[in-house]
Structures are given as structure tokens and as C-alpha cells.
């Protein structure tokens, strides 16, 4: 049992907690990050590392343009190679409805200066040599999207927190958040440690709802299971993240640094709950879908298959900002995009917490919003 004082406590050692903690520490705050298990044990460590600005929600596009700018300079900022690589994102359209929805999205995206085009099937084939273009109408192509290594980024941020006088606690399972009136004052972990701070950020990802309950708040984040696999490393032969939105589609990318292929798909119907068990269906179905799209991958061997949680908000957009509990903030409900949002939302939330407002207004992501403006490019 021990008592410890911080200027800000972050609950959660994934990308959101690590990045926000880092930018708070950079603003001079003494930051404690409390991680229930170990950094990247939750969604961040299970994600495939894609980074894109191709969204349909205006605010999301603006946040992602900022994030991509930050990823470009992140290796320097964090003094470690985070393996950022601008290989682009190619969203494939196999029917007219999908093509139209991409064209509409492109119109919105271009308003913010994003370099994005709807290209023909032949052009898709030039960007992805060996692509099976049968039935393909074309694709939404953005060359400035990319990828980075979630482990390198998250651990890089945490090392930065430590350099900036902060601390990272592992196996720190927050069980209680204490208030004085309507103001947060401290948190307690399962092993009895108490941490004092006037600021507490809930960055618990799939478990943000549980942390919210500790202060009587309902934070509507619900996890559902997504699975992923990684192959052995092979010679570089795929530049962009390929996204196939068909009901039996998939998305995958070749890791720029190592040459592994890594990918996943969204199950139909979704699998609710925070289980991260791997299914027999995925380990056979995902390879079928990958090889259908890129037949030359048939001989590439699968090394590992695992599952992780998408932490979904009701509209598929993040939940970021203040709460009715003074000093208690939330940044969760990333809905499968936490890694790519991480740098930008980390800095913006740090601005909001320290200065009272952020350089990009996040109020459309506030907790008490109407959940009607759904993201179409989930």
C-alpha cells in the first residue's frame, strides 16, 4: 500500500493513454499511467497498424490529417523508429453502390485537401501488381495514407512519458475512483495502491464503460471481436493497405519494415463481447479471402492468428472530452481506429485538459451527443 501524487492520471496503457499521457507530460504535468495488465495488452497490441484519412465524418478527417502529419515526424519526436510508411490505402469497389459511396466520400475528403481519387480497375492493378481485378469497378486511392508499428509507437510514447518525469505502472487494475463532491481526487487499484490527482483520464478502451461506472457515468462503449493473422516475412510486393468491403471481404497490408502480411476482416454478424478467443472459421476463411484478392500470396505461410476488440461507440466515432464529473475526462470508443487517431487525439485531449480547449474543436465527439452521424467508412 502506498500513496502517490500526480498532476494527471491516465487509466489505460494503450495508444490513447500513452499518447495523451505523453502530450500531457510535454505540457509540464507529472503523469501516471495505470495499466491493468501491460502496455498494448488490449486493442492496440492486437491491431494491424493502418493509418488513413479516408473517412466520411468531417471532424474525423481533420483529426486524421493532423495525425498523419504527426506520424510523419513521430520517429524523431519519440527518438525511436516507429516504422511509419506512406504506402497508401486502396478501397476496392465491386459494385455500383460502393463506388458511389466512395465517390461521395471523396467529395467530402477533398474539401479538406486530401489527395484522393477514384481510380479504374486497371489503375488498381498497376498499384497492386497481381491484384485479381475480376468484377472490380475501381477503387478509392489515397497515397498519403499509410501504416506504422503499434508496439513501437505505444512503447515509444511510454518511454517519452518516463523521460518527462512521468511513471508507468503495470498490473495496476483501477477498481475505485474517489470523488470529493463532484470532483475527482484519487483512484485505487486492486492491490490497494492509491494515486492522487485532480485529473483522471479514462482511456480504458473496451473497458471504458466499466471505468465510467466507477464514477456513476454511462459511457456507451461496447467491444466486439475482430480477428487477425500475420504471415511470414517475404519480399516487398504490396504497397498500400488493401480494403475489400464486400460482405466476405477483408483488409490487409504488407508491413513496410519487416515484410510480414497482416490483415483482418469484420465478421458478419458481429461477435459482441470482449472475448479474444481465435476461431476456426477465421483461420480458414481469411486466407481464402486474401488469396482470392491477391493469388500470388498462396504460398506465403501464416505464422499467427489472434483476436482483439474493436471498442465501438454507438455511431462509430470516438468519445472524447469532459464529463459531468469535474476533472474526469474520457477518450475511448475509437471503434477500430484508436491507433491511427492516437497521436492527434492525444495532443488535442492534452490541450483540452490543460488549456480548456483544443486547437481542433472536439465537441462533436462529446459524451452527451446525439448518436446519429454514423461513420460510413468503418
Amino acid at each position, binding site marked *: 500500500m502506498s500513496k502517490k501524487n500526480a498532476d494527471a492520471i491516465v487509466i489505460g496503457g494503450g495508444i490513447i493513454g500513452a499518447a495523451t499521457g505523453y502530450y500531457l507530460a510535454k505540457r509540464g504535468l507529472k503523469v501516471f499511467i495505470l495499466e491493468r495488465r501491460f502496455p498494448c*495488452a488490449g486493442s492496440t497490441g492486437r491491431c494491424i497498424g493502418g493509418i488513413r484519412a479516408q473517412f466520411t465524418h468531417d471532424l474525423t478527417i481533420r483529426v486524421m490529417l493532423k495525425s498523419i502529419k504527426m506520424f510523419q515526424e513521430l520517429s524523431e519526436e519519440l527518438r525511436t523508429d516507429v516504422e511509419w510508411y506512406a504506402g497508401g490505402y486502396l478501397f476496392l469497389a465491386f459494385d455500383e453502390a460502393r463506388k458511389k459511396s466512395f465517390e461521395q466520400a471523396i467529395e467530402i475528403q477533398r474539401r479538406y485537401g486530401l489527395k484522393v481519387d477514384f481510380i479504374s480497375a486497371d489503375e488498381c492493378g498497376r498499384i497492386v501488381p497481381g491484384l485479381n481485378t475480376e468484377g472490380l469497378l475501381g477503387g478509392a486511392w489515397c497515397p498519403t495514407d499509410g501504416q506504422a508499428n503499434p508496439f513501437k509507437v505505444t512503447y515509444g510514447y511510454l518511454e517519452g512519458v518516463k523521460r518527462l518525469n512521468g511513471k508507468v505502472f503495470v498490473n495496476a487494475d483501477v477498481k475505485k475512483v474517489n470523488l470529493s463532491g463532484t470532483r475527482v481526487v484519487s483512484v485505487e487499484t486492486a492491490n490497494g495502491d492509491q494515486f492522487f490527482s485532480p485529473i483522471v483520464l479514462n482511456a480504458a478502451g473496451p473497458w471504458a464503460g466499466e471505468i465510467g461506472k466507477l464514477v456513476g457515468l454511462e459511457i456507451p462503449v461496447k467491444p466486439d471481436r475482430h480477428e487477425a493473422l500475420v504471415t511470414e516475412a517475404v519480399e516487398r510486393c504490396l504497397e498500400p493497405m488493401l480494403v475489400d468491403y464486400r460482405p466476405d471481404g477483408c483488409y490487409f497490408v504488407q508491413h513496410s519494415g519487416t515484410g510480414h502480411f497482416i490483415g483482418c476482416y469484420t465478421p458478419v454478424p458481429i461477435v459482441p463481447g470482449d472475448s479474444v478467443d*481465435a476461431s476456426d472459421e477465421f483461420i480458414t476463411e481469411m486466407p*481464402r479471402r486474401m488469396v482470392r484478392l491477391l493469388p500470388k*500470396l498462396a504460398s506465403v505461410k*501464416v505464422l499467427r*492468428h489472434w483476436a482483439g476488440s474493436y471498442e465501438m461507440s454507438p455511431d462509430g466515432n470516438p468519445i472524447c472530452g469532459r464529463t459531468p464529473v469535474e476533472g474526469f475526462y474520457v477518450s475511448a470508443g475509437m471503434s477500430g481506429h484508436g491507433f491511427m487517431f492516437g497521436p492527434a487525439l492525444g495532443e488535442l485531449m492534452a490541450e483540452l485538459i490543460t488549456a480548456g480547449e483544443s486547437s481542433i474543436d472536439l465537441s462533436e465527439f462529446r459524451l452527451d451527443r446525439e448518436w446519429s452521424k454514423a461513420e460510413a467508412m468503418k
Partner: protein
Amino acid sequence: MKAKMKSVKKISKIRSGFRVVCRCEEVTEDEVRAVIRNGYHSLEEIKRILRTGMGHCGGRGCLKVIARLIEEETGIPIALQKFPSSRPPLKPIPLGQLGSYRNEQKER
């Protein structure tokens, strides 16, 4: 298995240096020790930082050696260390082979 672990410890006393503990990802003993000394005391964290256990062998070759290094550096006994989950398919299998299983099912 016990005897094998012992011999690892013995060797490490003779000469600590440029020795590969993870062949798949080519990680040396010194690199592992440096990460442990930087405050990362679990196999899970070291896996995420150095990729040990993420190669073709799935950790069969390296994890026990690294657990021993953690014990040496921190005093945390191997028996109390949590090993990362084993991930299917355990041995590498080509995408085409896994995917064709599905196609055959569909044709039936």
C-alpha cells in the same frame, strides 16, 4: 527440460555477450538484458519490444531462455512468470492451403 534450463544458466555465467536467444527475429542476449534492465519484466512486454516469440517458432525456441534471463535479472521466478498465449496454427501453413479448405467446403 529442467536440465536444459540449468545449462542455459551455466553458459550465461561463462560468457555473457553476443549470443542469439531468438533465432527467428535475431535477438541477442544483451538486447534482452538491456530491455529487462530498462524496467520491462514480463515476457509479454519483451515480446512487444523485441519481437521475441513472433517468428516462425512461435516462441518455442526463445521464451524459456528469456524467462530465465528475467529471473536472473529481477529475481522473479520462472514459475511466477506469465507466458504469452500460443497462437494457432502453431506451425506455419501456407495461405493457399488454409484457404483451399474453405473452398472445398463450399463446393460440397
